[in-house]
């Protein structure tokens, strides 16, 4: 319950919002103010032609406002909270207006586990929407196929001089065609092409070839099994409907959170959390999105273990997952989920690629590997069964020294050419690796 100004201050996303909120925290600035129980609402004019509608739950310490601000809570919400505390008499007790009531009812329903308006699934409408989307995606991939061939015809030496707009235009068309996953890959191609030197040729070739395969696969879904088609949908960036996710089976384990990374996408921050099952050895990735870094939902950090169920998204290969019920504890396990040699890791990678050869990277576990050199110039991780070259990065020296030359367990993303480590366990010490930092983060 918000009872002090300090409590409101703690909710402010930044100093500017708080300062503006204080400015607005005068009843005279509001065209209407009301309160019913723990919910307060009000209308205040901003830069728009209509007043912004703000409603806050003083117990739940959450708010909603119709202003365009991305900050949560916005300055209007903070101001309303301050008014509710500083001038409670200015809030007229009475019935909530419809717009405030619908928000409050929705929250109450969510809290009790009941959907506010349990609409029946419109199977016919959904099928039509899916058919429309598939048609647009198909058209988009046909255009992409032509464009990729044009890139191959011109060659890397020619297209690397193209401005980012060249890649962005194609990416935007794919987003319009409801294939944002393809759009992201095209942008990534642009970044690879812009890298100087001959070393960029192989990664670019790999990415181009796989994107070509993906485009072809989308055009031939009739020849693919349903699991692979579902996996393709994930690659295209299509969300899984909530009712479909609700039906997914749970996989129970002690899920060790081993690494976490953030990436700024077009207008979103993506947080990827990498998890390894202590008993199953399975690897999962939980993705969260938010317009701002501060808006990401709370989630377990590296070094913690989630004991409970994960629901994997449908499709082959299974990787993306969502948390179900469970509890958190400190990670006690000293490894990364059971034995796995370099040969084992390559076998698992090959098995995935055999069915989904368009996958960009796939997580592999290596246990008891040592750091060393493959040839004269390539740092690598290896054991008696082979080795994997490491991706270039500023973290290599720190990783190599942290091993002490002894055997370590590593989880990394393998793209077929090189391995980008995500997490390492060396002599009982757990680390996570960020691709762009020279440092390893000690997580336990």
């Amino acid at each position, binding site marked *: 319950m918000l009872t002090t100004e300090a409590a409101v201050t703690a909710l402010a996303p930044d100093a500017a919002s708080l300062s503006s909120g204080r400015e607005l925290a005068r009843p005279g600035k509001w065209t209407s103010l009301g309160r019913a129980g723990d919910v307060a609402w009000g209308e205040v004019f901003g830069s728009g032609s209509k007043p912004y509608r703000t409603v806050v739950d003083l117990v739940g310490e959450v708010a909603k406002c119709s202003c365009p601000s991305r900050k949560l809570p916005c300055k209007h919400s903070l101001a309303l909270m301050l008014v509710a505390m500083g001038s409670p008499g200015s809030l007229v007790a009475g019935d909530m207006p419809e717009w405030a009531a619908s928000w409050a009812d929705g929250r109450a329903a969510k809290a009790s586990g009941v959907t506010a308006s349990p609409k029946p699934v419109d199977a016919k409408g959904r099928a039509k929407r899916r058919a429309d989307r598939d048609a647009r995606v198909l058209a988009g991939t046909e255009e992409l196929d032509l464009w990729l061939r044009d890139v191959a*015809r011109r060659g890397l030496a020619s297209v690397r001089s193209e401005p980012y707009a060249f890649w962005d235009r194609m990416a935007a068309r794919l987003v319009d065609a409801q294939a944002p996953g393809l759009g992201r890959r095209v942008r990534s191609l642009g970044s690879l092409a812009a890298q100087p030197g001959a070393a960029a040729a192989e990664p670019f070739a790999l990415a181009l070839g796989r994107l070509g395969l993906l485009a072809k696969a989308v055009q031939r879904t009739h020849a693919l099994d349903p699991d692979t088609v579902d996996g393709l949908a994930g690659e295209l960036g299509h969300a899984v409907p909530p009712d479909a996710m609700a039906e997914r089976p749970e996989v129970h384990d002690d899920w060790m959170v081993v690494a976490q990374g953030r990436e700024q996408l077009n207008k979103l921050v993506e947080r990827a959390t990498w998890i390894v099952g202590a008993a199953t050895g399975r690897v999962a990735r939980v993705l969260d999105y938010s317009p701002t870094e501060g808006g990401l939902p709370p989630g377990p950090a590296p070094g913690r273990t989630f004991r409970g169920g994960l629901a994997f998204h449908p499709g082959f290969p299974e990787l993306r997952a969502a948390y179900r019920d469970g509890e958190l504890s400190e990670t006690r396990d000293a490894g990364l989920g059971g034995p796995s040699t370099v040969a084992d890791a*390559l076998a698992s990678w090959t098995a995935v*690629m055999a069915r989904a050869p368009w996958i960009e990277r796939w997580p592999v576990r290596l246990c008891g590997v040592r750091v060393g050199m*493959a040839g004269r110039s390539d740092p690598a991780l290896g054991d*008696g069964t082979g080795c994997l070259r490491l991706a270039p990065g500023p973290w290599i020296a720190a990783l190599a020294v942290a091993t002490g030359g*002894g055997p370590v367990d590593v989880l990394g993303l393998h793209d077929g050419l090189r391995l980008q480590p995500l997490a390492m366990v060396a002599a009982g010490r757990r680390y996570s690796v960020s691709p762009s930092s020279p440092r390893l983060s000690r997580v336990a």
Partner: protein
Amino acid sequence: MTAAPAAWSVAVSALSGGTDRVRLPGTAPAWMEPAADPSGDLLARLGWLGTTAAVTPVPADAFEAFEPADAHGATPPRFPGPAASARLPALLPEHGVASPFLPEWLRLAEARGLAAPPEMIPELLVRPTGSVPAAVAGPWAGWAAWVVGTLSGDAESDVPEAKADRRSAYAAWLASEPDEGRAGLLDGFPTKPADVRADIVAAFDGHAVPEDEPFLDGCLDDRSERVREAAAHVLAHLEGSGYGIRMARLARGSLRLAPDGHGGSRLSLTAPPIGPANERDGVRDDGIRALRDIVPAVPPTALGHAPADLLGAIAAEGGGIMVLLLHGLAASACRWRDPAWAEAVAAVCIPSADDYDQQGATVLADALAACWGVMPPDRVAAQVMSLGGPEGPRHGAFALRALTRFARTDPLPPGVSRIVVRWALQREGYVDREDAARLAMACEPDESTFMLARAASDRAKAQSSHHTPSTIIADTLGLRLAMHREFDK
């Protein structure tokens, strides 16, 4: 090379040039659907070769693992606990600037026989020469330097290792094997790089004996300024050295006391003689300003005056010369750790500060903070409280500057937290002066720092400002005390 990697290389080459210019040799596998044009053919081949050729593992015999650190004779080091380990990354350079408290962290680790966490060693290895004690780089230092060199394609280079612990290693050698150490370090000395020569000379600090004087005195003629400065520093501390005698003679000749006609003394200043001999000893300025170089190089007891007499005369003289001399005397008192002289100098700095502009007051504040660093805590506390409360005439920038510098004194002076919190509580006006004293003395040092931090933070919030001088002092003290506490956990 197997057929698949060869085909992959050919396809990558074709993509680099483009199918308009490079013809893709050979034919696609029979099972592959024929492409409509060469670019489609290339695209398809890249797709399937990417799943086969690229994954072809490097043969096991092409991989050579690094030898384990213990195979290099390095025993596994002991590392600090999680809290102290987690502190280190925050102290290392970000955007090229390291925290001023990094050396303190390294010393705290070294004093406890702990090594830096292994994942941080590469960053420590590339820090400036001689700044990382050997013990902190740990027994793995040599192995880690070899690994870093191998990864960078420079396995033969010993530079990272030398940078890590050169000066400490030289000093340790001199301490454990004086004769062999001297012979080894001085062998080929003139031909060594300037930074190595400077580290060798600096390693004699605390280990020099009279027989080293000819070598050290000769270093005053070295072509490198760093070497000359290091030699002067060591010689100043070498009892009976010609350098020390020359500097003391210059100081005494310049700083004389004469009767003032009222039963007291007045300062009689004489400019030191100018000449090549003085320049060789590091006296760069001419005239009275030469005392700036001379006074800090002479122990205060060698000046031939009682503290009260000399400082009384300096205070009566006033002006820029007073600032210059107080600065020099403070440096001298700190260098020779002389608490009596330090207190006498500090006592003159405080009342004098009001007479100077900002620049002069800043020099005096720094001198005052330096003196506090070698004085007993109760004497420091008395002087700090004499700075006055909010109504006091000297509670402004001068006091804040001195206290801020004092809070940064390395090593951490005993009782610094209580002293500063007592003054700051009084200044912030939260409690009256007696209460402030009682509160500050009653609580443990760490508690008092947090109390100060909270008080300063409340005040900053009230003023809608995040950085007041008090918060800066509190943050500084809080960080340093936390570092000590983390090592003791």
